[in-house]
């Protein structure tokens, strides 16, 4: 029956070339507030162009759409999960899509203690992330080793291995603190600031390139020249 009525109201709206404000007025009455789109319109006048530096624009975009790496290490990751989940809901800040693969992530939250065996792996994951990339260190462990600082196997802070943009202290930091840290990171990204590296990090090196000291000689039979290794000089760690 409806097909016999060509003049449907809906069809009129589809066919109309009148500006959408008219549609709005006709829908909700004249003089309604400008919530829908006019603020920007008013600011720009009739030109649809704004002038800004391209990298400034890019920084703004970057800061507002960050993909996090889904990366759980230790106790802090429990609070990190709570930050992603309901109640704290990191997504509200344009920064909450956890990505399982480092190839798709922009930000890595390091939530926990780094031990010797995991150091090279973390370095590898960090290297796999595309530029530009940012790191939030969560918890005391990523600052100094935290409660485990004196452990024989514990790296004294994540910065010994990768550069870190924002440190969030606490053991563990509350979700609110992490949200604050991430908001700070966004602010830095928008301002185009990049990481100062404060220590010379442990690097992955080919075993063959290491200086031939006692330790290297001892392991020479077990490790292939081309294998990647990380050398921890515990005595130099803070």
């Amino acid at each position, binding site marked *: 029956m409806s097909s016999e009525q060509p003049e449907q109201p809906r069809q009129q709206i589809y066919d109309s070339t009148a500006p959408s404000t008219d549609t709005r007025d006709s829908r909700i009455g004249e003089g309604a507030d400008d919530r829908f789109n006019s603020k920007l319109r008013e600011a720009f006048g009739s030109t649809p162009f704004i002038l800004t530096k391209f990298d400034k624009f890019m920084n703004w975009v970057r800061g507002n759409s960050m993909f996090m790496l889904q990366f759980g*290490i230790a106790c802090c990751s429990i609070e990190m999960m*709570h930050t992603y989940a309901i109640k704290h809901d990191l997504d509200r800040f344009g920064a909450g899509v956890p990505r399982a693969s480092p190839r798709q992530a922009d930000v890595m939250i390091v939530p926990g203690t780094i031990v010797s065996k995991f150091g090279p792996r973390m370095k590898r994951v960090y290297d796999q992330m595309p530029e530009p990339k940012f790191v939030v260190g969560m918890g005391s462990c990523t600052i100094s080793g935290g409660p485990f600082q004196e452990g024989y196997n514990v790296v004294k802070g994540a910065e010994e291995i990768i550069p870190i943009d924002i440190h969030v202290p606490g053991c563990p930091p509350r979700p609110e603190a992490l949200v604050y840290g991430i908001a700070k990171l966004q602010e830095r990204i928008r301002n185009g600031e990049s990481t100062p590296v404060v220590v010379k990090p442990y690097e992955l090196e080919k075993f063959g390139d290491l200086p031939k000291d006692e330790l290297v000689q001892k392991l020479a039979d077990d490790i292939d020249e081309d294998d990647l290794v990380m050398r921890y000089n515990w005595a130099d760690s803070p």
Partner: protein
Amino acid sequence: MSTGLERQPAVEVTEDELEAIVGDRALARDDHLNAPGFVIRPDDVQDVLKDLRDEAGFDHLANLTAQEYPDRYESIYHLRKYADPTQEVSVVVPTTTDEPVSQTAEPVFRTADWHEREAFDLVGIDYEGHPDPRRILLPETWQGHPLSRDYDQEKPQLVTLTEHANPIQPDHHDDESDTMFLNIGPHHPATHGVLHIETVLDGETVVDVDPDIGYLHRCEEQMCQQGTYRHQIMPYPDRWDYVSAGLLNEWAYARVAEDLADIDVPEYAQVIRTMGAELSRIASHMLALATFALDVYGDFTAIFQYGMRDREVVQDILEDLTGQRLMFNYFRLGGVAWDLPEPREEFIEKTRDFLDGLPAKVDEYNDLLTANEIFQIRTHDTGILEPEVAKQYGCTGPVARGSGIDYDLRRDDPYGYYENLEWDVVTKDGCDNYSRVLVRMQEVEESAKIIEQCLDLLEDWPEDERTVQSNVPRTLKPDADTEIYRAVEGAKGELGIYIRADGTDKPGRFKIRSPCFHNLSALPEMAEGEYIPDMIASLGSLDIVLGEVDR
């Protein structure tokens, strides 16, 4: 009281009978506070353990502690019975410092496999005849044994990053097979942290699984050996099983230290402890359910978020009680840090509100999860763990109870206030992934029952008897050479601690018996021959926490 009635009471073995069984293989006696101890020669290990298992019924190798004295190495096998964990015996095996070689116990108890690897790794004892003598927690290339006496922590160490072969290339296990190698983790969403699983696949079927652990080995034992009994150790247990199960872990340390130093705990504090511990258990099981749903069918939007929602409430309550969301540090030797928060009525009402809402939530989980057809198809009859196998691997907690082993230390080796409350131990005999989930789900309800009774008690407790701590000296110095092993029922199972006092205010040796360590070691039994998604489900149903596996 719990359902003690239908259990078969284990036959009591007296000390004389034990002496008769060990016979003249016993070189001396070395009794621990919790159990009689027999010193035996390093080449009698298998014989003695076998006789103790078959003739006296000690079928649970709860723990293996290795330590170095100035003049010798020592391995201690802590045995108890699944049927009655209050019956314990320790077998002490000393070896010389120059040649620390001892016979392996692996043929008698499968779980000795990982234990002895750990003892070799950290202390440096060799086990003769061990099927797989590799390091387990530290990297293969590590130099020295960190818990031995002359270890120098300042020495540099090298760690390799082995590139694994391209997984698309075939990995011929032997000439016949046409298999492929797959590397899962250590950074992988399904491994619940930093676990590395080396799998070999034939098509989609798992042929071989080898969990590679140690990516979170934070030297917990060393840290505890450096801390004083009274205050400095208590914060660490929170960080073993960090899934909000903190209070349960703190209790493990509180229990062992209180028994070691002979400290009384006021009854009122025991009730608060019991309530707090069960709240922790609920929080922990909620996370287990939430992540299991995530593992099994990627449900990030409903069940995972619901689980998190309920955990938030529990964490709020615990925060009111303890002052922290996750790392509570609330227990003290001889009690708890402080009384319930004021106004007390408000706290009690808030907790009651949560408990009142719980049945509806549990129903919701049941609708979403256990009654869900997809879920049932995925979890029924997969990841089978027979009770006998579970015992061989020393499995405890919901994993054992899902295999029909009726073993719960809260009832069988009572502590706290559990004895005086009405509740049941949940067991299921399906032995599969589904049973393990059901056990957790119903344990949440049982915990709620316990909390409710505790709240009633706390509400009506006489005002002038609300003592939260007994008088404990500032410095504790238990007598030298007292040794003790004690365990509590943590969220994942039997969480035990062995302490040897050396006369100072710090432990001489502090060894943690982690339930997850044992449960994870059973993964190959559950996963081999199954499809790979079922292996992931089995791993999820074990509910491991790497902080506790690696310690």
